[in-house]
């Protein structure tokens, strides 16, 4: 038995303009949880796609159980016992869970699917790994946390020895993350090897036996999980030390935005909330408690059944996105790919979205292309958006850079109120730090921010006040200085209410 179950030597991959993998060597031991961490664009996903056979490397070799292998496509990887859970799930929404799991490896009896024996086998499989998912339910009705488990069972059903998980926690809430980690540890005990791709240091430290750090396509460090700490990892990942943000003392200003009796049964019940000048008001809540609807109402995407919105003391008459933007409300939507951006528009075209109809971008209905391009170039520079040109379609940018396009767009117009929904979801450390600094400096300049995030750390660090939403109601408004995370959790689960 070789010491390493999987080893790469000299993997090199060029993309136009980028050296995605530069002579990458990783060594994965049998039965360990091995994290590969790095910023967006560090080459983690490229490397995994090479190992999984989705991309052919320009150079380099892969050794599996001591033998050199050619992984020309994913079926080769699967037959070797390498399975991968992608960041975006590969499931068929209208199919049931068991149908999804067996897809591509169906058991046929007399020409039809042998459902009974399939389900029996799946149940045995689930029992042996301590995993449980509702086999009969349709995938489209299930939460992200459960789908993640479905993907894992899919791999185990195909006999995977190595499980690659690409940013598996990006879309999960804290409870689900903890559950996932327990599952992974259980899998490890059963002898499976797990490759965990992430850039969330706390999680990596919590779960890993060993950690490989990548930066700009190169491996820059290999550590034992026990020896590593957050600072070392961050320094390796971004090549410099992180500073904790400087937060100015909070002083309540004038009222800017006030929600009065906003109701949208059954999701929202009589929401009253005031946002003051120069503050960051955090909105905390477990997903599905009405925060999404609330934010969509403030940005005009959803109409409330009852209630009023006041802006600087005056009632806002037209609650539609254009009118709200006109009075000075900016919006960072939760889902950048479906709501925030038009993927097949260029960077420049996306940067003017929402203000495209106004001067200076449109003059008498005619688009002012030179101004649009110049503005876009300025924003690209100011927010360090990595793109070869402002004429490139946003689709081809990495997730972090896509988010920066939205941030740049919203900050550039200097709104007085910014509604930010999950602004750092899926971003790496560097980009997250940048978002935090942007929000804080905007606050310093007098902007008011309503910040919703599922990352409680983020809410606790940045907010001046935190409004907790539970079951469509604001159950408390608390100060992060006086309350700890555990108490916040009590509010969020409805166990406490003011």
């Amino acid at each position, binding site marked *: 038995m070789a010491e390493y179950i999987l080893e790469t030597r000299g993997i090199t*991959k060029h993309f136009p303009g980028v050296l*995605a*993998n530069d002579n990458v060597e990783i060594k994965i031991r049998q039965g360990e949880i091995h994290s590969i961490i790095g910023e967006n664009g560090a080459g983690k996903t490229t490397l995994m796609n090479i190992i999984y056979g989705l991309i052919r490397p320009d150079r380099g070799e892969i050794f599996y159980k001591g033998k050199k292998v050619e992984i020309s496509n994913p079926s080769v990887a699967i037959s070797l016992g390498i399975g991968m859970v992608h960041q975006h799930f590969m499931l068929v929404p209208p199919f049931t869970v068991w149908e999804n799991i067996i897809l591509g490896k169906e058991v046929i009896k007399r020409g039809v699917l042998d459902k009974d024996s399939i389900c029996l086998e799946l149940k045995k499989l689930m029992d042996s790994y301590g995993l449980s998912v509702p086999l009969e339910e349709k995938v489209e009705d299930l939460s992200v946390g459960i789908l993640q488990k479905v993907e894992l069972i899919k791999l185990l059903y195909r006999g995977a020895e190595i499980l690659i998980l690409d940013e598996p926690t990006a879309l999960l809430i804290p409870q689900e993350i903890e559950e996932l980690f327990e599952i992974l540890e259980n899998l490890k005990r059963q002898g499976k090897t797990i490759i965990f791709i992430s850039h969330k240091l706390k999680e990596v430290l919590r779960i890993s036996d060993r950690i490989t750090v990548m930066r700009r396509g190169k491996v820059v460090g290999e550590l034992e999980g026990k020896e590593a700490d957050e600072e070392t990892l961050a320094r390796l990942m971004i090549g410099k030390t992180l500073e904790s943000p400087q937060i100015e003392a909070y002083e309540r200003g004038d009222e800017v935005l006030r929600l009065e009796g906003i109701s949208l049964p059954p999701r929202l019940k009589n929401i009253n909330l005031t946002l003051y000048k120069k503050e960051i008001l955090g909105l905390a809540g477990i997903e599905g408690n009405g925060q999404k609807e609330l934010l969509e109402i403030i940005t005009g995407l959803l109409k409330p059944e009852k209630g009023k919105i006041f802006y600087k003391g005056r009632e806002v008459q037209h609650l*539609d996105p*254009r009118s709200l933007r006109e009075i000075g409300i900016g919006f960072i939507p939760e889902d950048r790919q479906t709501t925030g951006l038009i993927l*097949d528009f260029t960077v420049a075209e996306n940067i003017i979205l929402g203000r495209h109809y106004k001067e200076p971008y449109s003059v008498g*209905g005619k688009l002012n292309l030179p101004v649009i391009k110049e503005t876009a170039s300025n924003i690209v520079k100011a927010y360090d958006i990595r793109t070869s040109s402002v004429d490139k379609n946003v689709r081809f940018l990495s997730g972090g850079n896509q988010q920066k396009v939205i941030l740049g767009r919203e900050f550039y117009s200097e709104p007085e109120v910014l509604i930010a929904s999950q602004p750092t979801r899926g971003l790496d450390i560097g980009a997250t730090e940048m978002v935090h600094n942007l929000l804080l400096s905007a606050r310093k300049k007098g902007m008011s921010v309503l910040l919703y995030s599922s990352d409680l750390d983020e809410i606790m660090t940045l907010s001046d006040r935190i409004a907790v939403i539970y079951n469509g109601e604001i159950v408390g408004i608390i100060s992060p200085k006086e309350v700890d995370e555990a108490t916040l959790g009590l509010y969020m689960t409805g166990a406490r209410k003011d």
Partner: protein
Amino acid sequence: MIRRILINILAPFLAVLLAFSVGAIVMYILGENPFYVYKILLINSVTSINGWGYVLFNATPLIFSGLAVALAFKGGLFNIGVEGQLYIGAFACAWFGITFNVHPIIGIPMGLIFAMIFGGLWGVIAGYLKARFGAHEVIITIMLNFIAMALTNYLVNNPFKEPGQINPIPQTKELFSGSIIPRVYPLFNKLGINLSPSVPLNYTFFIAIVFCIMIWYLLERTKWGYEIKAVGLNPKASRYGGINPSYIMILVMFLSGALGGLAGVNDVMGYRYRFLDGFSRGTGFTGIAVALLGKSSPIGIVFASILFGVLDRGALAMDVFTNTPRELIRVIQAIIIIFVAIGNEFIFRLLQRLERESE
């Protein structure tokens, strides 16, 4: 960027080449000499000035119907109803032409405006139903095609039938001269181009080119074009960007229908000078193929229309001079569309692979 443009041109070109090769095989099986057939096809279309005249005449309504489909595509809608909009537009301009005896300075623009407004309103029915009730535009426009054909069929058979007509196909009476779009041969002959007076190419062709430029300008240089494309690509993000997708849907279907209506002008105002029952024979549907082959770009649509014009013209010659049935031209047209569809997908993937930045 340059590479992308190059590939975009190369794809349809290769598609056409491949389609002709497949067509050659079919002809060979039928016992014809493909080289001879293709030679006949080309000699009668693109090797003489008169041939070109016919080709451009054939291409004219296709440019309009291709633009109509392409504009709807850009706005995220599939307008299958161009054929119906064409009949409505054609009848509207015919009605104006047989009713008002005015000077051409008024008559020609008014004829065009009538075609556009009525074609546009016919299109708006589908746009409104989609925006208001979410009714699928494909089904609505298909049904509206039948209604439009039946309606014009009724009108031309009953209230507007030419008195004392002998022609077995019902038609209206002739347009007043003020609504007639003249042929181009006098101008061409003055310029020293020897175009025969029998060639029906008329100024509608140049009107079509002007519309190509206008639609290009609308889509690429105005905020309305920006909004149309935004809604076509992502309605949700458009809403977030302060665009009202319902309004855009209705606008797009009006403009698309107006272009569809104009596709009827060439025959009514520029060729027959009357509305002839069922004259179109699928021009509106061919527009779908033209838009696809032209990749929904106005310039591409001009070239695609000319290609289809060549094929239509050549079909006639093939019929006369060879044993190959002219239906084979239809087969080749269909094969071209299939290859373009495959090519599109292939090229999209190729581009994505080239451009995707590494994670």
